[in-house]
């Protein structure tokens, strides 16, 4: 990269916030102290009324927009929607994006040192839930002097955190953006997660989670897990139009090497991921997904579960998403309607499956931008023009 794109937040530097107040977790354990790595884009106004929190998905992290160095080939994972003039306009909003606890990008997680042993946590790192993350995010907000977010927005697992925010801290969230999410995983969703976990845990290099002691990584398992996961992020049509039955070479070679382009693509995705992501983090994030079910404490009545929420919601789904299909978003929307909450819903026509929430698409952007326009209006933010 030679020059920053005009609609980019430009070069950004991650920050680390250290917390010494123990965090009690849903699993019954306590994190005695922890770090949260985060980035911010834009400027917090004097009234502190323009803060937007971004919640990341399974393999996401704090680097949502901009570049860490001029040599970076790719910007942050949600750069399509965060920046000057973009849906989440950094000329207006102060955006906070963090790496969740249990992650492997700098926040306290399985690769961090356990203060009690002086060794990396590894398999002993406590199981995290969406609720735990939301509590930790609230503490980060306290640290940054943000009493109430103008909006909290997230896709997929990030959307679940947004929903949890609206239920747990209703007076600290003014607007909720829940994108390509679900109020709970289906049996099929959990089944896919379990295949991914078994791929990792059955890798001989996993060593019951003590792979660090053996100076190795369960690369093959993590690669398989990612390959399975990746299939569920794309739609059949998207895969078909991208790869079809295209071959790597001119002829079939009647062997088990890579023959079809889609095989090559999946292996490449798996390889890249397995050398940059921690297996424990992957295991833990999939469990957090499985556990999420705010209606569970209300006999499965989601409308009763969302009763504490007081902010307007925008729920977005994508037509070809079969991981968390539109019907799952409608489940949430209908519960919010039953509970008499403020909610809007758009189902974006997209061929890109679950991954569509990460990509730019004209209607998605129009819906997103219109919602943020409303957020700005409700928060009394000056028009940028």
């Amino acid at each position, binding site marked *: 990269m030679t020059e920053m794109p005009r609609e980019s937040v430009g070069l950004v530097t991650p920050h680390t916030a250290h917390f010494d107040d123990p965090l009690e977790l849903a699993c019954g354990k306590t994190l005695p102290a922890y770090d949260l790595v985060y980035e911010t884009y834009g400027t917090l106004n004097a009234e502190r009324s323009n803060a937007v929190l971004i919640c990341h998905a399974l393999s996401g992290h704090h680097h949502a927009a901009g570049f860490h160095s001029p040599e970076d080939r790719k910007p942050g994972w949600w750069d399509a929607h965060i920046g000057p003039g973009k849906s989440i306009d950094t000329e207006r909003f102060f955006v906070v994006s963090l790496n969740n606890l249990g992650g492997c990008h700098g926040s306290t997680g399985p690769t961090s040192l356990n203060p009690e042993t002086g060794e990396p946590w590894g398999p002993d790192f406590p199981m995290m839930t969406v609720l735990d993350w939301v509590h930790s995010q609230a503490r980060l907000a306290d640290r940054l002097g943000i009493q109430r977010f103008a909006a909290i927005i997230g896709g997929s697992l990030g959307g679940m955190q947004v929903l949890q925010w609206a239920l747990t801290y209703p007076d600290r969230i003014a607007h909720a953006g829940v994108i390509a999410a679900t109020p709970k995983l289906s049996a099929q969703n959990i089944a896919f997660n379990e295949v991914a976990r078994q791929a990792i845990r059955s890798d001989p290099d996993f060593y019951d989670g003590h792979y660090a002691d053996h100076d190795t990584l369960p690369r093959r398992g993590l690669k398989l897990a990612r390959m399975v996961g990746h299939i569920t992020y794309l739609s059949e049509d998207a895969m078909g139009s991208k790869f079809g039955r295209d071959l790597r070479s001119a002829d079939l070679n009647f062997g088990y090497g890579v023959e079809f382009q889609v095989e090559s693509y999946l292996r490449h995705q798996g390889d890249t991921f397995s050398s940059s992501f921690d297996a424990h983090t992957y295991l833990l994030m999939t469990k957090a997904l499985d556990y999420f079910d705010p209606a569970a404490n209300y006999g499965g009545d989601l409308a009763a579960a969302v009763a504490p929420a007081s902010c307007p919601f925008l729920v977005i789904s994508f037509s070809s998403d079969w991981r968390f299909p539109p019907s799952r978003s409608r489940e949430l929307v*209908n519960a919010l*309607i039953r509970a008499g909450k403020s909610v809007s819903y*758009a189902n974006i026509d997209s061929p890109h499956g679950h991954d569509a929430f990460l990509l730019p698409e004209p209607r998605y952007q129009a*819906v997103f931008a*219109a919602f943020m326009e*409303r957020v700005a209006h409700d928060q009394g933010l000056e028009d940028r023009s």
Partner: protein
Amino acid sequence: MMRTDLKLIYDWVPQGARLLDLGCGDGALLATLARDKNVTGYGLEIDPEGITRCLARGVNVIEQNLDDGLANFEDDACDLVVMTQALQALRRPDRMLDEMLRVAEECIITFPNFAYWRHRVYLGLRGYMPVSKSLPYAWYDTPNIHLSTFNDFEHLCRQKDLVIVDRAVGAGDYRDHWASRLWPNLLGEIAIFRVTRRSNTRQGVKPFG
């Protein structure tokens, strides 16, 4: 500037009502009612541009096809259901009427009156399917698959034992003329009906004929 039929509906909606607007378009009615009359509720729409404009003005809008019904709304979920200029485009207008009066006690419905005199001239004298301000499409590309008249709709309400609380003429040459009160089926381009379930004790208006 609000559409003529919307202006009339605006007057009919009580203060603080919970309202469901079927085919809410750009959300103008809901936004105005929320501002002036403290009305809350939802709009249903499938047009992407309408949905975006609703979002920008802070109207709760749900992307939902009316032909899929209103199963996601509970019985008596709101005070009033409004449907403007959508009845004639539905697969089963009669079932929608049932649904509307399940979700609320009262509904307001507007639709183009096929028996409007200009439409009669088109069909009766010239022998063509009517094209007008209220029916701007050609026969082959029209979304209006269930056109009806003032009389037809009254007939349906009577069959369903519903009470017509009020009716009006929303547009046309004689909109404010005494004659359109007398002969709405001939002189009204847009039909506006305010209908409730029989259980309601309110006195209905006398049917036309």
